[in-house]
């Protein structure tokens, strides 16, 4: 089968693209200039498009992603919808109509991206089945404003965009994109395309992937490409071979076992959130703070851990959850506790030829949890400090178990072992917390950079525990304790 992408219902040959041509570049070269580049690193969402994804239940879901980050070759046989495909002047899609008539566009450059992000949420099954509840982040029509957290607008101040989103009704019966969701998603196609700038290969299964990796250990593993896409666009890195692992069935398994939960390393964070279905409250606290919905629709636990970045947001949470990783190589698998995984700045025990297959979270999970992300902006920012808490109290209020994961304060994510010791076996009260907070404030070796001063990072470590205590000691928060 010739490599091709179905764009707005029409199949277009992929052509000779290497692994470095992004979906955005490919779309624009094909004349679909409605999709824009605003930042080329997945921050602004001007490049947002909808793609058809497996909903995990035999159907399809339209999800919005940053087309600037992903290789075009990863979309062989996939379905993509851009703003041009949703409607035309004179025949606007409901999302386009609300945005146009409510002043949702000014300069218009970010608008096609907003349209795609908004349309994906418009089609979210169950969205419109709402009880009319609304809060600052949810409309009375069930619209979750976090769907737009990865889209930046410099003109409007967002109010008219929010109002457009909140005015959307349910999709009509005859809406073809709504109907499309009831049929299976396009299958992952084994792909091998090349240009003079490198190859992109999507293997059919894990064994094939590990074989490729064994043969070319320098190959770039690409799942959601939310980190690699930045390397491509901003640092201009190029790989001779990119291996697409995001659709490997072995990396997309999800299982709830009596003693642990296994999350496939290539499940997107959005998929993991859906499948976890509230079983791990700490991760539910994390997800909305992890980048944006656009990024979470591509990003994976495997990718966030694979880079071994000290400022990734999943490591502190997974450290607090005492997670382990299943690492696979050709003919072998091993389990490594996450606490032993990181060895240095962007370094880990993962060997050449090895990839992360599964994230394993022990059960039962600690009941008293919290995730504090210190950043300049509330939505979609990079942590200056991230602190994750997982505590278990005895019936008498003594701290039976405490795990605290930290990010942004050392060359690797780390556990706050001394603070955990101070807390463990002591009553969960202000005296204990104050003493432990001072210990926590001495953790790590925070640096000063453009995000925060070292003094602020240190102060945030200390006050974080005080805040966590305040959140979990006040009566209105007691339901979180059970």
């Amino acid at each position, binding site marked *: 089968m010739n490599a091709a992408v179905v764009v707005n219902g029409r199949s277009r040959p992929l052509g000779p693209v290497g692994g470095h041509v992004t979906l955005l570049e490919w779309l624009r070269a094909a004349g679909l200039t409605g999709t824009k580049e605003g930042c080329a690193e997945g921050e602004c969402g001007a490049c947002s498009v909808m793609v058809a994804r497996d909903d995990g239940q035999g159907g399809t879901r339209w999800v919005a992603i940053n087309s600037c980050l992903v290789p075009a070759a990863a979309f062989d046989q996939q379905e993509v919808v851009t703003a041009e495909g949703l409607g035309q002047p004179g025949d606007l899609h409901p999302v386009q109509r609300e945005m146009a008539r409510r002043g949702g566009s000014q300069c*218009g450059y970010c608008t096609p991206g907003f349209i795609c992000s908004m349309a994906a949420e418009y089609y979210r099954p169950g969205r419109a089945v709402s009880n009319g509840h609304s809060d600052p982040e949810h409309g009375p029509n069930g619209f979750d404003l976090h769907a737009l957290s990865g889209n930046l607008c410099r*003109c409007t101040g967002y109010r008219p965009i929010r109002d457009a989103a909140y005015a959307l009704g349910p999709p009509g019966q005859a809406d073809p994109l709504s109907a499309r969701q009831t049929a299976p998603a396009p299958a992952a196609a084994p792909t091998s395309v090349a240009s003079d700038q490198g190859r992109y290969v999507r293997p059919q299964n894990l064994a094939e992937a590990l074989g490729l990796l064994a043969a070319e250990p320098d190959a770039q593993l690409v799942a959601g490409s939310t980190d690699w896409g930045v390397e491509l666009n*901003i640092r201009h890195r190029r790989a001779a071979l990119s291996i697409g692992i995001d659709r490997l069935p072995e990396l997309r398994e999800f299982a709830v076992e009596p003693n642990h939960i296994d999350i496939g390393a290539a499940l997107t964070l959005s998929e993991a959130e859906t499948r976890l279905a509230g079983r791990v409250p700490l991760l539910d606290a994390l997800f909305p703070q992890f980048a944006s919905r656009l990024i979470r629709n591509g990003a994976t636990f495997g990718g966030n851990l694979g880079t071994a970045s000290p400022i990734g947001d999943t490591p502190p949470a997974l450290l607090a959850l005492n997670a382990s990783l299943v690492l696979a190589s050709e003919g072998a698998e091993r389990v490594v506790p996450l606490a032993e995984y990181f060895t240095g700045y962007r370094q880990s025990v993962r060997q050449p030829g090895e990839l992360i297959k599964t994230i394993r979270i022990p059960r039962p999970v600690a009941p008293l949890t919290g995730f504090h992300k210190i950043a300049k*902006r509330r939505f979609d920012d990079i942590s200056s400090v991230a602190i994750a808490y997982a505590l278990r109290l005895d019936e008498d209020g003594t701290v039976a178990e405490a795990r605290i994961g930290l990010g942004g304060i050392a060359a690797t994510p780390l556990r706050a072992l001394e603070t955990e010791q101070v807390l463990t076996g002591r009553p969960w009260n202000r005296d204990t917390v104050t003493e432990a907070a001072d210990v926590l404030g001495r953790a790590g070796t925070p640096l000063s950079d*453009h995000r925060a001063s070292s003094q602020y990072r240190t102060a945030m470590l200390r006050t974080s525990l005080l*805040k966590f205590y305040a959140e979990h000691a006040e009566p209105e928060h007691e339901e979180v304790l059970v």
Partner: protein
Amino acid sequence: MSQGYGPLADRPHRPAVGLEVSHESADLHVTGQALYTQDLVGRTYGTLHAWPVAAPHAHARLVALSTEAADQVPGVVHVLTAADVPGLNDAGEKHDEPLFPTEVMYYGHAVAWVLGETLEAARQGAAAVTADYEPLPALVSVHDAIAAESFQGTPRTVSRGDAAAGMARAKYRFEGELEIGGQEHFYLETQAALAHVDENGQIFVQSSTQHPSETQDIVAHVLGLAAHGVTVQCLRMGGGFGGKEFQPHGLAAIAALGATLTGRPVSLRLNRNQDIQMTGKRHPFFATWEVGFDADLRLCALRATLTSNGGWSLDLSEPVLARALCHIDNAYWIPDIEVHGRVAKTNRASNTAFRGFGGPQGMIVIEDILGRCAPQLGVTPDDLRRRNFYAPGQATPYGQLVRHAERLEAIWSTLCERSDFAGRQAEVAAFNTAHPDTKRGLAITPIKFGISFNLTAFNQAGALVHVYKDGSVLINHGGTEMGQGLHTKMIQVAATALGVPMSLVRLAPTRTDKVPNTSATAASSGADINGGAVKNACEQIRERLAVVAAGQLGVNAADVRFTDGVVTGLGFHDKQLAWADLVHDAYFQRVQLWAAGFYRTEGLHWDSGRMQGEPFKYFAYGAAAAEVEVDGFTGAYRLRRADIVHDVGDSLSPLIDLGQIEGGFVQGVGWLTLEDLRWDESDGPHRGRLATQAASTYKIPSFSEMPPEFNVHLFERATESGVVYGSKAVGEPPLMEAFSAREAIRQAVGAFGPAGHSVDLACPSTPEAVYWAVEAARAASAAAPGAQPENQPATPPTAYAGV
């Protein structure tokens, strides 16, 4: 000029102006059909792409440049250097901005540009260019420049009365200083130009520019051509905010130079990181001040020095400084005043226009002063502000009568009522009593902003209006569309002036061969001046058509009325002519159906040496009340609610104006509380490099910064005489209503301290900055008599780089 149609402000029966309509391109925006400069590349055969050779030094001498290796890179067509320039090697108007420098003046300064068949080839070519640099000492911050006495341009002073005597008369005196951060424009569409050589050597440049005429001038002088050899077109911009007033010119000149040398179209588009690193921003300012109040807490004197960080070249730094000096009074009568201003020269990208154009940096000084002094004077900040408002009859320090000063009080009281200011003050106080770790603040601040270019000559505009034989109308004008809705308003103005439905009016892209010698679309003046010109052109045509209609209707030409495409005589509604029929008949009577319109803003004069005169046609007024909540653990804050009452005169287009007010406010909140530019100020190899040069490190407001409750009210019965259809400019002023958010943060922080605690708040007031202010307030509480000792405050950081 028009005759017989009443003053400029009068509206006819059933005007198209004032209707609530969407942006004229809204349907194109939402469907991805709206074209921006870069979208034209794929539609232009054989386009080459340009990539800069960026110097990795903030200040260095370019010793040698070798392009040999780059020429060998497959796909590289040419490397542009200074040797290629046939005309003047300068990207600006002041001859201080070499297009190809021999002295690197800021980190990332382009010393050459590589043209490639693909962007990838051009980039690889740029990496292959070898340049030898001799590093030189670099001045990065405004303080570096002050210490080295490195300034540029002419220092200016605005003064009135005797500030020393005023200070001596004061009962209460305070002094302080304020560092005001800059702001990256972060237009979503980065700088872009596409040039090709048209027929007979004419250069045609499509540019994302707010100032096509100046882009034309600079392309022409770089190429050694007369202005008539260059045409510049701007379809639309994906945002401008002032960042495309001066900065596009050199980039357009590079593209034009490449097109001239290769004979092929050349596209130059900065990617986001290049754009943030290479182009100028809102000027950071450093202000020192002393202020005096009398026994009634009325301002009696202000002495201040404002030093802006202009970067490596003058660009627009001098007029930005002038506007800052002319706005330090904001809404307040300050009888004796002396304010000095100067522009520091540093090794940074050249700072430039940004929405407000120095006005915000001037106004924040007095708002900061009032916010800091109120607790020490024992009054609420809103009381202190209100009692110092200009009264009717008073004049600004530069000698202009503050016309409509009574609107300050009217807007203020309207806002207090609409926002339930008093009731919510009590709620905030109750909340703060009940919550030791979280505090709220509610603040209200006014604005008064002068409208017109400070430089009188720029206050002129042209338009070209065609009526075709079928009755359809095509308008051109000199203004550019960057999302502000100027074209929408111009369609409404033309439809109103001609008395035709808006559907008959089409607007063509801005081009220098249609309307020459235009002013920048800037200073909020786009609708005022271009609207005046469009109206003038339309009225010329209408007058001619009225003569034709008068004959057919049997009435005097002065009694012909045009409404919604129907032409009648005054009082003779039984006889009607259809617009299209009248136009058709006029053509056959050989009546000219097109006209060039012109407008000059009357009554302006300005002595830039003495800094005295009447530079502004009028003032825009407004006020905002903002409520925030501050987390004492982290310094993080949330804007809970914002209410604005703003004076747009009689709105030309209410939905457009609402968008400008809301968008300006949130952009201002970004500048004041979130957006944080940080330079490497170390002595390491990357000294002078902007550390926040990416969307991942420079954060503009997202949904999380939008106030969940946001109410905007247009001030009523606000007709502005002498302005097109009674309207007022709206582009810039609302940005400064965001002061209310920063002052609300200040008040929330103050609630962590003892009564009378004066809060010194860094700007931008990021969560970290707010946290240190909270710590200082808590420390003051701990030190206050009778206070319980609290945890000792953490040490605030010593280096706070950014200005």
